[in-house]
């Protein structure tokens, strides 16, 4: 178990800087690493790479479908393409390209889908992906991650560089809450237990991990002891850990900045229904599209706050006693 800080302070470094810096570092160390952007270099800070090593960052212009195919072609010759665009363009828009030229053809493409869910803020409903994890999860042999802080993002980028296949990493662009020490290690298919508790388990990903920790603090004052798991590895998911905590706490709440259909909540429900039926509640987007707004407003509107998690926990703990 990791003892996460209880300050829930934002990191000093933005996730986009971590992506750009790590990609630059990987590209300098390995001439086969190549970044691809569809006119969002300045959004994710990779413009500094094109200035320094122009042959290892290609701006395709606004053509995500072609970008995904070019990435597949680059990988045919042994290059390791890292493709970035906003999550909805990487999945909704270029889904068939990702599916056929990517996974079905068994090419080697690493995808960073940024601006996850409500963190797209002022870009609004057209840009607010609540379904990218679900889409990526439907692709056979596609590895799907949602990162929760900069230590994890950097670790996973370095890790996927060395693994052949299609890897989709979902992230926010700005500052995350600091959760992990810099030397932390992560494993695909292994969730991180951030807090122990006997009464309920909150399984979260991305920005909802910090909200879940805050909820656990509130719940503790009410005498409810909540375990908190950072399930950054959406696929493969940590079946054993989910079953173990379902058996010990006998109640589960999932929390995600994504539609409750298709993403983390669905993945956990699938595990539970097959292996250990357990009362559960899912926090996340419902039958809703995105909209413009500030992050705090959007988190309240879509019921993605610590307080919403607390209420869901109270409900599920009550139902356990029925």
């Amino acid at each position, binding site marked *: 178990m990791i003892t996460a800080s209880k300050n829930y302070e934002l990191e000093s470094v933005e996730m986009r800087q971590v992506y750009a810096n790590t990609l630059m570092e990987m590209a300098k160390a390995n001439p086969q690493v190549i970044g691809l952007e569809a006119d969002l270099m300045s959004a994710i800070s990779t413009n500094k790479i094109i200035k320094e090593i122009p042959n290892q960052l290609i701006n395709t212009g606004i*053509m995500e479908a*072609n970008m995904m*195919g070019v*990435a*597949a*072609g680059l990988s045919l*010759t042994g290059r390791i393409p890292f493709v970035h665009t906003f999550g909805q363009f990487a999945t909704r828009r270029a889904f068939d390209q990702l599916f056929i*030229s990517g996974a*079905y053809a068994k090419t080697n493409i690493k995808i960073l889908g940024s601006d996850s869910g409500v963190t797209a803020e002022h870009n609004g409903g057209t840009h607010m992906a609540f379904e990218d994890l679900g889409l990526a999860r439907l692709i056979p042999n596609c590895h799907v991650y949602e990162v929760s802080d900069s230590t994890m993002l950097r670790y996973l980028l370095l890790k996927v560089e060395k693994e052949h296949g299609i890897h989709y990493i979902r992230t926010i662009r700005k500052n995350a809450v600091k959760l992990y020490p810099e030397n932390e290690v992560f494993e695909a298919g292994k969730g991180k237990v951030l807090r122990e508790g006997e009464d309920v388990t909150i399984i979260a990903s991305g920005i909802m991990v910090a909200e879940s920790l805050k909820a656990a603090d509130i719940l503790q004052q009410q005498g409810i002891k909540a375990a908190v798991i950072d399930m950054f590895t959406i696929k493969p998911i940590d079946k054993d850990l989910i079953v173990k905590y379902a058996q010990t706490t006998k109640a589960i709440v999932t929390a995600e900045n994504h539609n409750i259909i298709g993403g983390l909540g669905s993945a956990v429900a699938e595990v539970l229904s097959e292996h250990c039926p357990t009362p559960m509640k899912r926090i996340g987007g419902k039958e809703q599209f995105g909209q413009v707004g500030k992050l705090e407003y959007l988190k309240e509107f879509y019921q993605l706050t610590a307080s919403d998690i607390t209420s869901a926990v109270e409900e599920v703990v009550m139902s356990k006693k029925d």
Partner: protein
Amino acid sequence: MSLDTQKLELFRDEIRLKTLKELYNLGFGHYGGSLSIVEALAVLYGKVMKIDPENPNWEERDYFILSKGHGGPSLYATLAAKGYFPEDLLYTLNQNGTKLPSHPDKNLTPGVDMTTGSLGQGISAAVGVALSHKLAHKDNYTYCIVGDGELNEGQCWEAFQFAAHHRLNQLVVLVDDNKKQLDGLTKDIIDPLDFVEKFNAFGFYVRRVDGASVQEIYEAIELGKAQNAKPIAIILDTVKGQGVPYLEEKADNHHIRPSEADEAAILSAVAELETKLGKGVKG
């Protein structure tokens, strides 16, 4: 390079014969669009491409991507003729568990460089390969056949813009302009207008040739390579069912499940090609 036209025409005949036998054996398939690219495949695999059939994944090879994946049967016939795999494999086309699916799968068939069939996607992969070679200062060429109907797909035009911008002069796009797509004539469905004008406007070196002439196709490729500044587009003036007059004239010839009359015509074409190649009729 000089061209031994007669030798190349024999190779073309061999590909056409194997394609017909392969499809006839299956009992149905994409005859039209497989036969219209036979001459182009003969020129590529018989003359211009740097390949090693003994070592399909040779790193120094030229790449070929059949973006119009439904032409798979004639690509397989070509690969068999070149010795990538035994001819018998052709007669497993589309059978359960086969290594030869109707649309090419690079993970199943020796010599297939990219999985295609979802139209518009092969050309992007070809552009990625050509870009990779250019960035590495390697002189390998990437060849890609796209269909005229396939060019309905917007992704193709994304790829062409990208290729021209990056001056991918080692990319050779061959457009199989057979003027028909599944539902009818391309000009009635989405009029392609003038491909030469369009590719010119998109920054390509472009030539239109008789797609049934190995000589013209070969010369156009060599001329394109000599200009050394732009990606190359060769518009192949072809007909669906090319080289088999009966099939050329058949109106609905995209995907055929032969009738008795069709069968007789196909078998007679097979016999004719076999006689020409001096192999005698094979059962």
